[in-house]
């Protein structure tokens, strides 16, 4: 079947226009460069002032497999993933039938004319486009044809939806770092395709875009880059890493920006040491060595890497070494779905390593927090002399999110480090220093770091039992004392962690607790709950574990609190129940892990239902 022009028996003529409120999904083949096209669409829409989000659903593979990109366009600023798509574009012969099935009744299906769908639906508007023909006519070298063919759907969509061509050119120019040749080659195809569409397609669907003012002053970025920049602006000095999806681009962005941002103004040398380790065991042990020696140290990985770091994390916990572990979570257990998202490492991380531990986790919920926690985590780690887990995920880390421009970090906090002068002063005051002594009563001892030459500055660090002066000890009382002091440090240290964000509604009886990248789904769900179900809700977004007291207060203030999360077992709900047994019965867990970001619809369904 080949359809030269639009054909549809769907009752479109009578339908009112749907403006700035729909989802587009594009099915392509990975390795064909469709990312350029998709980002161009995303950026152009954003440039037009319309709130957008773009989510890449890609296989764990390099080339030739199906991949989808979904752009949500929403005038109200709801940018969570949706399960349903008004507009589906298919460029992949292998998935064209499935792609067609994905279109919402009444929606639009656009496909390249070399695809051979088995049958066509009559409840959708269908357009075909001569993608290969136009690509060929573009004059692009044969090697680039597939790539250029993807530009065709950009042009076709531009025409059908009314996307501003100037915005598209700006998006392309940005993508190609201002390089005119590449920009114009691609833009030429877009223009041609748009012109072809104008000539050959009769618009029969209601979807279109209109310029708005809702994105002014905002930026688009992915969470991994944001986090990387945050760390670089936060005085990161040491990075050790091992490649793993979806975390690699944290390290790769850092590496890319060291020459730009972190050449020492005085010497012209690097002020960040970055090492690609032989594995994650090495990566964490290097970072611990660096953190111990007084560098602001970080390692970045995903679930399997954290698993391999388990033993060393116990060492950092008990020997009290500052180190930041970035976990860009993906779907597990095991190798799982390496290119899908999850909030699945919560309980695991909290109890990581043998023996008694309880770890600090930070949960950025957007790119601005990814940037902020990128530097703040370093402060917290040094302040509390502890491993700090920065729990991002694939959705936040690898997809493009809207955000505010990044804000310059607060002062660097190096925590309680004593150098030669400090020790001298102490000596003059007749005070002794011992590595693990709780001088301030907050559980946080003072430390010296390697290289401090003052007499008595040196101490011996070990993962075996040690007393307040860092001497080897098997004494039972010493063991209890030191470990209870560490527990106190974690308890009191909560004040350094980002507080939860609370948003209330008048008359709300029901509370919602969530964290991290699910925020857009919650925000949108609350809107529906209020408007469609007359259910105002209060919302607390956890940004750190161990919990601030506000979390307890929030639980106490609501008879029913839904804990919404993207994992199978309701892991944050488990931690909350464990932490607040007296409030445990108020907690309703609403969780799901299928590798995809949560949708508002699913959130709503769980909250109505339970």
């Amino acid at each position: 079947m080949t359809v030269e022009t639009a054909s549809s028996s769907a009752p479109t003529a009578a339908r009112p226009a749907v403006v700035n409120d729909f989802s587009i999904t594009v099915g392509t083949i990975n390795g064909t460069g469709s990312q350029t096209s998709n980002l161009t669409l995303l950026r152009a829409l954003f440039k037009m002032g319309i709130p957008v989000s773009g989510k890449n659903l890609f296989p764990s593979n390099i080339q030739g497999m199906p991949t989808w990109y979904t752009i949500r366009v929403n005038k109200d600023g709801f940018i969570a993933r949706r399960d349903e798509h008004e507009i589906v574009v298919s460029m992949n012969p292998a998935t064209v039938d499935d792609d067609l099935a994905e279109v919402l009744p009444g929606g639009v299906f656009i496909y390249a004319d070399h695809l051979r769908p088995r049958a066509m639906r009559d409840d959708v508007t269908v357009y075909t486009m001569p993608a290969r023909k136009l690509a060929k006519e573009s004059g692009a070298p044969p090697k680039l044809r597939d790539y250029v063919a993807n530009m065709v759907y950009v042009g076709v969509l531009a025409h059908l939806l009314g996307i501003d061509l100037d915005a598209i050119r700006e998006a392309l120019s940005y993508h190609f770092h201002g390089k005119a040749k590449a920009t114009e080659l691609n833009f030429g195809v877009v223009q041609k395709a748009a012109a072809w569409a104008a000539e050959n397609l009769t618009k029969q669907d209601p979807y279109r875009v209109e310029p708005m003012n809702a994105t002014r002053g905002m930026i688009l970025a992915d969470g991994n880059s944001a986090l990387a920049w945050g760390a670089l602006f936060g005085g990161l000095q040491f990075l050790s890493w091992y490649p793993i999806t979806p975390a690699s681009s944290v390290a790769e962005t850092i590496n890319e920006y060291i020459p730009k941002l972190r050449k020492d103004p005085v010497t012209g040398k690097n002020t960040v040491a970055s090492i690609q380790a032989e594995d994650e065991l090495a990566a964490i042990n290097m970072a611990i060595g660096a953190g111990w020696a007084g560098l602001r140290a970080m390692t970045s990985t995903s679930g399997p890497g954290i698993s391999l770091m388990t033993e060393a994390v116990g060492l950092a916990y008990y020997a009290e070494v500052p180190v930041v572990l970035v976990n860009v979570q993906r779907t597990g257990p095991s190798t799982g779905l390496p290119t899908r998202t999850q909030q699945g490492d919560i309980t695991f991380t909290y109890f990581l390593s043998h023996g008694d531990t309880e770890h600090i986790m930070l949960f950025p919920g957007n790119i601005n927090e990814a940037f902020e926690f990128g530097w703040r985590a370093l402060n917290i780690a040094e302040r509390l002399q502890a491993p700090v887990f920065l729990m991002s995920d694939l959705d936040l880390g690898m997809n493009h999110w809207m955000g505010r421009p990044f804000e310059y970090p607060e002062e660097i906090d190096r925590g309680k480090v004593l150098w030669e002068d400090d020790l001298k002063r102490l000596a003059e005051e007749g005070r002794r220093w011992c590595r693990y002594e709780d001088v301030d009563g907050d559980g946080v001892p003072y430390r010296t770091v390697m290289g401090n030459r003052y007499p008595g500055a040196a101490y011996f660090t070990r993962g075996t039992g040690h007393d307040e002066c860092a001497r080897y000890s098997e004494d039972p009382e010493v063991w209890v004392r030191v470990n209870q002091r560490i527990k106190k440090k974690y308890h009191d240290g909560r004040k350094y962690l980002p507080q939860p964000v609370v948003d209330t509604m008048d008359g709300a009886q029901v509370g919602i607790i969530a964290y991290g990248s699910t925020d857009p789904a919650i925000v949108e769900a609350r809107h529906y709950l209020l408007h469609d179900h007359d259910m105002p809700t209060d919302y607390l977004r956890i940004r750190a574990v161990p919990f601030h007291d506000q979390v307890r207060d929030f639980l106490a203030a609501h008879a029913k609190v839904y804990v919404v999360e993207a994992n199978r077992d309701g892991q944050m709900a488990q931690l909350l129940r464990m932490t607040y047994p007296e409030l445990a019965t108020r907690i309703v867990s609403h969780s799901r892990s299928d590798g995809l970001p949560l949708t508002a619809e699913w959130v709503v369904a769980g909250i109505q239902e339970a």
Partner: protein
Amino acid sequence: MARTNAIGLTKADYKGAPTTLCQGCGHNSILSQIIASLFEMNVRPEDVVKFSGIGCSSKAPTYMLSRSFGFNGLHGRMPALATGALVADRTIKGIGMSGDGDTASIGMGHFKHVIRRNVPFVYIVANNGVYGLTKGQFSATADQGLYLKRQGENPYMPIDICMEALASNATFVARTFAGDPKQVKTLLKAAFHHKGLAVIDIISPCVTFNNRPESRYSYEWAKDHEAALHQIDFVPPEEEIWLGEGLEPGEVRDIRLHDGSTIILKQVDEDYDPTDRFGAIKAIEESYAQNVLLTGLLYIDPEAPNIYDILDLPDEPLNRLPTDRLRPSAEALEAINAGLFHA
């Protein structure tokens, strides 16, 4: 009164906590020689840092240099730990102390990769062919066919630490024997002055679990079978080189290190060239055929770039940079923001 060195320290200034290793353990002798070498080289203990993994050998750093920083980390992970730490201050001399279990079993991967990175520290493998601290299981360097009481007979071919180091392009590879204190000490001195990673495989008998004369790791076997490649001397940068008396020319080879110090080898085999990696491999191979314990400086590449070169770090300690040199300006952030796609 105790003898002092040029910087006014006595040997006691290099001591650590009293040893809790077994009496006669080779590791104790190694400790003495580390202390002696630093004492004689007039190195301040404050300018040294100690790293280790887990094992009797890895406990050993506790028993020396209590004025030095030290980190007794995890089993097998010393190379990684040391790498991270040493990056923080390049003015410090590092000693990594490991065992054959720690290095040749659980730590094999890190051993190989710290070699590739040429991180400048002295990597000592106190090699006894067994796991001492866990009571005498075979390690990967144990002789094939060795019989031990609780373990039975070892069926596997041993791993040779020096061969492994050479295979992966280590820039300083030496083997010695805890029962040959002079050689141990001189090799340590040379190693301290090496520009990159210096691997020293020290046969260090475990008197409790593997000291029967038929074992290559016993004092008796090693003493009886030691074949030194050369008599080795070390001349620090500030000293005149004196080649010794009664030597025929050609018997002596001197190797200039990056900092101006010199290693002087009075060679047993004139032809042995310690800058010939392949020759070193051959010498090891032959030593097995001849059933001897070959000791000495097997190989050195004094000029290969080290990790500091590779990472292009400033000369001053990274961990002392003031915070204002650690973060880009507000303008730099504005440039980032401006460089992002914005609406």
